[in-house]
């Protein structure tokens, strides 16, 4: 089994070898390490993308918009990912962002996961029929974590989720009430001494 350190190093070097700047290659190394740690096919997708990248042209999207429509060529997932991560603080205000025709979208996924940590919001990512809930770069919940290569994402949707409770007020109150059973009712004596005060509060 390859260690994550080897995965990071080889992905970084391969990215540089395929023409990305060192700083971008560093980002890819960390991303593939994360995907593989979570059991998502990072190496497989990167390898296939880099094989095809030398033969095909890809769109290098620089400025991310609300709607990033289909262009002549598929979008490069790494250039799109790096710029999404860099611009996420302003993109957050758009609430929803769409891409069409994004190549190897699994390689785009870790950038969005890291963006979730940067803005402190969960992000919902939909790649065609695959859903991903990205939780502050701590975990990824998905209906499609089976391995494999995803060569194209025809329709990508990204939603910034508001920081809301996943429960209603009543459910919280009920649980809180139960938690109160661990508290001690204070009598006068406890009130005086329990907080560590002296005989005279001003001493």
């Amino acid at each position, binding site marked *: 089994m390859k260690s994550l*350190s080897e995965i990071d190093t080889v992905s970084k070097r391969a990215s540089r070898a395929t023409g990305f700047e060192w700083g971008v290659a560093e980002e890819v190394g960390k991303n593939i390490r994360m995907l593989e740690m979570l059991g998502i096919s990072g190496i497989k997708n990167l390898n296939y993308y880099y094989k095809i990248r030398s033969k095909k042209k890809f769109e290098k999207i620089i400025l991310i918009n609300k709607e990033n429509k289909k262009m002549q060529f598929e979008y490069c997932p790494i250039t799109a990912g790096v710029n999404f991560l860099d611009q996420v603080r302003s993109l957050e205000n758009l609430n929803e962002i769409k891409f069409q025709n994004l190549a190897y979208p699994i390689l785009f996924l870790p950038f969005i996961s890291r963006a979730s940590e940067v803005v402190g919001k969960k992000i919902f990512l939909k790649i065609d029929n695959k859903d991903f809930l990205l939780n502050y770069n701590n975990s990824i919940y998905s209906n499609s974590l089976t391995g494999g290569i995803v060569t194209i994402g025809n329709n990508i949707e990204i939603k910034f989720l508001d920081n809301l409770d996943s429960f209603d007020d009543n459910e919280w109150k009920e649980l809180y009430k139960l938690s109160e059973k661990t508290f001690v009712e204070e009598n006068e004596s406890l009130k005086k001494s329990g907080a560590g005060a002296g005989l005279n509060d001003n001493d």
Partner: protein
Amino acid sequence: MNIELRDPEIVMKLSKLGSFHQSKLSFLRSFLKEFKDWEYKRDLFELNEFGHGIAVYSFKKNEQVYSLICFANQLDEKERSDRVIATKWDAAFTLHDGVPTKKDIERLKKEVPKQEVGRLSYKELTLSRANKSVRIFNHVVEKLSEGKQPDISLLLSVGYLYRTTAVYGSGKFGLADRFRIKDREEIYGPFRLEMMLVYLVRQFTFDQVNHVAKKRNPKKAISLDLEICRNLGIGNSTGLGMAPFIVNHPTLLNNWVLARETVLKKIREIRKVEKKDSDLFIKYLKSSVKNIISWNTESEYQQIKIGSLLNDLGKFISFIEKDFNFSNEFAFNEIYLWLENNSDDECIEYIVSMMMEPYDQIVNPLISKMSSEEEQYFNIPTNRTVLDLKNILEDKYKKLLKIDFSRNENNQNFWFISKNKEEPRLADRFEEEGSELEQPLAIARDIKILYEALSVSKNSHTIDRFLLKNNHLRHVIRRAFIIEKFPYSEIQDNTIGKSIVPIDMLRLKLSFFGALKFDPRSDKWLRICMFQGAPLPEQLKNHDDSWVYN
């Protein structure tokens, strides 16, 4: 009195870093302190009459076990080399997490001797190999088998029976990634498992030499005297592979140097130095001189440094004995200021290390802060502005920004990864091919390019906008935001200049390891000795931390 931390622009110059010495903060000393209560055991020792075979050693505490597995092999004289081109060694080692099963040992027997071309698993933590100092090893075998102890002066002129030529960890060749083990308290200090491997290898060398002598002459042979063993360490040959490490791990580098600087600051701030502490300082200072006198090297570069150190130390000891009163307030601050005016870096940094000796209470809390969670600082804060970044560069890289990279001598070298060994190397840009595959280790040059790009950008622009056109500078933008928080994270020198002495980078790292007797064999590799004078595993309990000076 509030003493400022020393200026990173001075401390982080390569000539300064290349003058660092071992100290109480060094990893091998903190490793011995941490593991002194662990149960040491030799679990297996199956060697033939030539000393070839398998041995296993372990440290155990509660349910946690670390096992060193040694494979000693026959090696043709012609195949023995410390250089990276070697493919076979006298012995190969791995530190296994837990107790190895027979199946593990069989698996490792096939892989560990192959080193870089073998495959380890997540159950292995570190990997190494070593070659005998044949002259010394054979001498010891011969004498012991005759019932005599070896010639001590010959032994001490080298200092070890074996020298390692590489120690790998942190996920290399399939070894366990750091994340799997980083929460174990006993390995909070950096490189602790690498230190454990080297320490147990040292014991293996003694056991092996005794075993071979005994097999040669079972009736007459005696064991190597324990005091002689204690005064032998493990040699190490280290090349450029280690140099880029300190550039590639900026927050870790910061935490090492910051710990050292913080200790110095706190010692200089002591108003009243207690007599027991000044006595200890003077005692260790004087006894440490023998380590310098016995420091052998053929390197003219190092000989000059040793000469300067001995000369300055002589002046310093005379100053302390004749002109100095430890009852003065802030005595160590006075000493430090005297050193700055009267000594070279080699001596200043030597005394800085010595000052730490009486002060466990200052040093110990900082040891556990010398690791780093580097991932936390990886993201670039793209909401910051061009002006912010420019200010950081002007503040933190003042001297580097003055370097003129249009001059060939400032742009002479490039760092690359050797295809043969996958290890970093340095070459002349104007003489050799391959500079188009340069590694991103020319930080000073790239910071300067970044500064020039920032200078023609609008101050109010945010970094995400700046990156739209300048992604080629992304690697140094990341570093600049790191140095803002970690002042000692960057070497304040030109790492590609004509005058670079790469062994200064190695010396910095090795001093934090706790190495002694740096012996440069060229400007690109050196030999050192580790654990010389250290207690043997059986003596670890209640050992005296000042063993370095005994």
